């Protein structure tokens, strides 16, 4: 039996707010509420990265949140997709280039789906999640890495070491 097609039927979500204005967060909450009811798609808000398939990120990545975001990303088992919800998560939005902000989520972790809007409508979020499900079905089970994390050829991937290495890269400015 092709197991891949069941990924689509039971995606569990993890939601992390990296510095948003709560607008998109409450829209995600509203999505779980009766009117939109994401559970129709088998979606559960697990709140636990180890059992989640979709990471919903809202907000521009603030300096303090970036490390947590990376940690959560590495704790999620593959295959997984990342959905950036709202203008801030996509590109930084109105907070673009503020001093404590690293702009969009894609500067820290690879993003698969961008959902626009300020705040994103529940319909848009559902659209984004549905789009993410299509991507999820095609994903491989290899460990995904942010673009700035380079691994030499043939090295055996160790999740904890990779995390430490990525943390080193994003915190490089911290030490100087």
């Amino acid at each position, binding site marked *: 039996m092709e197991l891949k097609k069941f990924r689509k039927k039971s995606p569990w979500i993890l939601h992390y707010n990296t510095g948003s204005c*709560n607008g998109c967060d409450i829209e995600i909450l509203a999505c779980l509420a009766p009117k939109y009811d994401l559970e129709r798609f088998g979606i559960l808000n697990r709140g636990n990265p180890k059992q989640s398939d979709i990471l919903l990120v809202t907000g521009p990545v603030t300096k303090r949140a970036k490390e947590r975001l990376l940690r959560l990303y590495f704790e999620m088992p593959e295959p997984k997709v990342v959905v950036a919800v709202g203008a801030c998560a996509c590109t930084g939005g109105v907070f673009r280039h503020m001093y404590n902000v690293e702009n969009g989520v894609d500067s820290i972790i690879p993003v698969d789906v961008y959902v626009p809007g300020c705040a994103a409508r529940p319909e848009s979020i559902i659209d984004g999640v549905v789009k993410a499900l299509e991507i999820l079905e095609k994903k491989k089970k290899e460990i995904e890495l942010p673009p700035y994390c380079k691994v030499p050829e043939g090295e055996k991937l160790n999740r904890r070491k990779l995390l430490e290495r990525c943390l080193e890269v994003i915190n490089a400015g911290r030490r100087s």
Partner: protein
Amino acid sequence: MGKRITVPFGSQHVALPEPVRFVFQTENERIVDVEVDVGYVHRGIEKACSTRFKYMQVGYVVARVCGLCAISHTLGYVTAIERLMEVEVPKRALYLRVLVSELDRIHSHLLAMGHTAEVAGYENLFMQTFRYRESVMELLELITGNRVQFDYVCPGGVNRDMTTELEKEIRKKLKELEEKCLWLKDVFENDFSLNLRWKGVGVVTKEMAKEMNVVGPPARAAGLETDVRAEFNYLPFEEVGFKLITRRGGDIYDRNLVRAEEVINSIEMVKNVLDGLPEGEIKVPVKGLPEGETFVRVEAPRGELFYYIKGTKKMVLDRVRIRVPTFANIPVMKKLFIGMDYSDVPATVISFDPCLSCTAR
């Protein structure tokens, strides 16, 4: 020390919609020590408001300080700039501002109530509250064109006018909403398991509220009669039937009941606004450059919101200072946790309706 269990609560936690970190040291689930970190959402908006954005744009930026009280932030800023530049706002615009700000309060309060129910493990009540909250969201979407970020108020007035069809639609939905909110208030007041769980938990006494300068519904639930709507003339609240609501208990239960009663009062006010909506302009042009300093208090759904602005005759303001309600409530929260059960923590945190995005800006 060895008996303690450290329980991190946040920054990512399923009960929290936004990042805040509490690190609790618990003994038998009773909290003996707590450490708070509220700086996750610090983006530097104050700095940006005084460097990058022109004073006419700042209203849209400060709305993004917080999505839940977006209208209050804009209102605070806009009131301040209007006072600074001595702009006379048309009456109709003021009434429309009251309308949107009260509808915003309803949706925010319903969110807080529902979310408190959710973190107390009462999933069904959360669902029902959110179900009825949707009708407010629809109303706001109709009036302002967005569900969360309204961008309705601008210096000199409001951006959109109200049509008669809209008014009819609003009246219809309001009637339905009022019925539901009365039902919700009934549930929050009389539900046995909520009483069992919430009464006497997380009590802020009146003395504590005064000493720690608590604001908003938590202060009113403790019996402190403080409401900026009564203490500051930024909108004509008295004309539309504003009532100051207080309770005595100061626990989670009372905080939610204060919210429930305020929701009903707000619905009343919205109705009165619609009845007495004056005709006329909705916007006057604002010209010139701001000079001098002023400060404004506004009642956001979470409590007193304070804006301080200073201009030096430039397009860009010299200083914008935002003191948000949650910022004022964090000290009391921190104090409250000591000696509390860990199982009551999520409900207590949410019952303060914290808005960290406001706090850190």
